[in-house]
């Protein structure tokens, strides 16, 4: 189907080429912004609740700060380890921060695909939609964290599209999984969220 629609587009007269109204772009940008905020908060929460996420952050250097965002110009989410090693969602501003690792999705369209889970993170990497500024092993660790968080956060039908492998129930006791999910949700939307938003404005 896709290849057919592509070839049709090619034969279109350029002047009749459907223009994407700016409104759509704004909606997409807003959607990606909100998703980044949710994922960012969920990463912070997961770093306290999920053992593998905790371990991955433990192995990253002290005061490690990274962002995931859309090039050029955002939106972004910034995450960092503080002095005590606690993982914090730091908001959406890059300015004035020492960034160790940057993950940029090349454009808004690709970011929209990733965050509407039409494409797994791995597939997006394969289609060359990411620009990595920094050390590759660290980038891989961060992508793994995002995968785990998506498994926690999303219902199974959607998470199956977002990650390469959705864990079997046998590997993840349902009680524990849902408990973790509830804890991550609660932590993601706790009053701390308002604090972060306030600080970033």
């Amino acid at each position: 189907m896709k290849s057919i629609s592509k070839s049709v587009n090619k034969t279109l007269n350029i002047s009749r080429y459907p223009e994407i109204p700016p409104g759509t772009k704004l909606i997409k940008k807003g959607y990606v912004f909100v998703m980044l905020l949710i994922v960012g908060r969920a990463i912070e929460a997961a770093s306290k609740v999920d053992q593998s996420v905790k371990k991955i952050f433990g192995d990253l250097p002290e005061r490690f700060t990274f962002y995931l965002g859309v090039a050029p110009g955002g939106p972004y989410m910034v995450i960092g380890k503080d002095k005590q090693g606690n993982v914090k969602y730091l908001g959406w501003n890059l300015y004035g921060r020492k960034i160790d690792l940057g993950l940029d999705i090349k454009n808004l369209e690709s970011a929209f695909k990733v965050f509407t889970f039409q494409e797994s993170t791995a597939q997006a990497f394969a289609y060359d939609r990411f620009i990595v500024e920094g050390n590759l092993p660290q980038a891989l660790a961060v992508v793994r964290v995002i995968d785990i968080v998506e498994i926690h956060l999303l219902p199974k039908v959607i998470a199956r599209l977002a990650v390469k492998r959705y864990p079997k129930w046998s590997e993840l006791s349902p009680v524990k999984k849902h408990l973790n999910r509830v804890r991550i949700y609660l932590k993601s939307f706790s009053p701390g969220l308002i604090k972060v938003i306030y600080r970033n404005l």
Partner: protein
Amino acid sequence: MFMPDFYDFCSRAKTISGENALEKIPGHLAGLNANRPLIITDKGVEDAGLIDMVRDAMGDELQIGPVYNNIPVDSDYKVVDEIAGIYSRESCDSILAVGGGSVIDTAKGVNIVVSLGGGSLLDYQGAGKVRKRLNPLAILPTTTGTGSEMTLVAVIADPDRHVKMGFVSYFLLPDLAVLDPRLTKTLPPFLTAATAMDALSHACESYYCMEKNPLSDAFALRAIRAISENLLHVVKNPDDTQARLELANASTMAGVAFSNSMVGMVHNIGHTIGAICHVPHGNCMSILMPYGMEYNLHRRAGYIGELLFALGGPETYAQTRKNERPEKVIALVRRLNEDLHDATDGKHPRFLKEIYNPQGEQAIPKSMLSEIARNIMADGARMYNPEELLPDDARMVLEHAWEGTPLDRRKIKKGGKK
């Protein structure tokens, strides 16, 4: 047939191939306005007489500069900086890299420093620092495997910080790749086997992993056919010039395929073993290749089955039913390993426990497998493997590859969408 939503592909190194390819180098360098190349090679290559042979072949049309032969097994930036100094002092204007992977990576590093004019390679770390055309570089591969003459990366170590720096830029592609059967003539049969199996793994993995695209597929299939038709023959008859030229071409084609489509878990696990146990890359590749196929079979049976035409020939392909083709491919790779083992008097290892270091000790003790499995998460190839590969999975694969037993298919975790 498969057409990805999006892909990019770039391969722009001029390639010359043939029994007299070396003689053509001066003309090609002249076309690039260069006539005083620095030669970078390693001691093994020089001792085998290859540098003298290259000099003789090119005659006195070039004013060849110094020959630098002190390349360590893992290219490091200090050597790069030292060679860059020699290049400038001796007013060279181009580089001839004669050797295998580490020589080629070193040469690419040197070319960055001498062309962009910095004091040290360290100035060019980080993404996107190399964005200008570099000086002329000709690569003369002496193994039949790495395919580095077609890749846009150079991996160079910083021994003080214990890190490997990756330099990625289209400008790292050489201006000229030279494939001449005389260059691989002195390669011992067991190294021909190991390096060609590395090339085979590049072609196969690029064909069934996640960045597969139609252009890479074409290169991969032709490479697989050349290797399956010629490798065993060359190992038994090292003097067959034409067959050796086929292998050299296969290695280059597989290099194009994997440079554009990347590789998967065979390289992910293989790189990790290499970093921890310092065993030859090609040995790990030949052993792990059938396991990579078995592990990804539930997602990639179709593509793996398609490889049978290139790997087994048209008759085998026609005689094998469609649903049996993937298993046949895996069986053929295993049989090729067995045949190479016999043809090299056991020097070509079939399982991880059969790899020995130069002191004659087992290079990968079974006790190391857990450590290897724990470390697989830091290698980029994991992104491109179709099925997820976590340390527990790697551990399971490693145990089978160590003993030489096929994977227990029930133990492969299958999840997510296809």
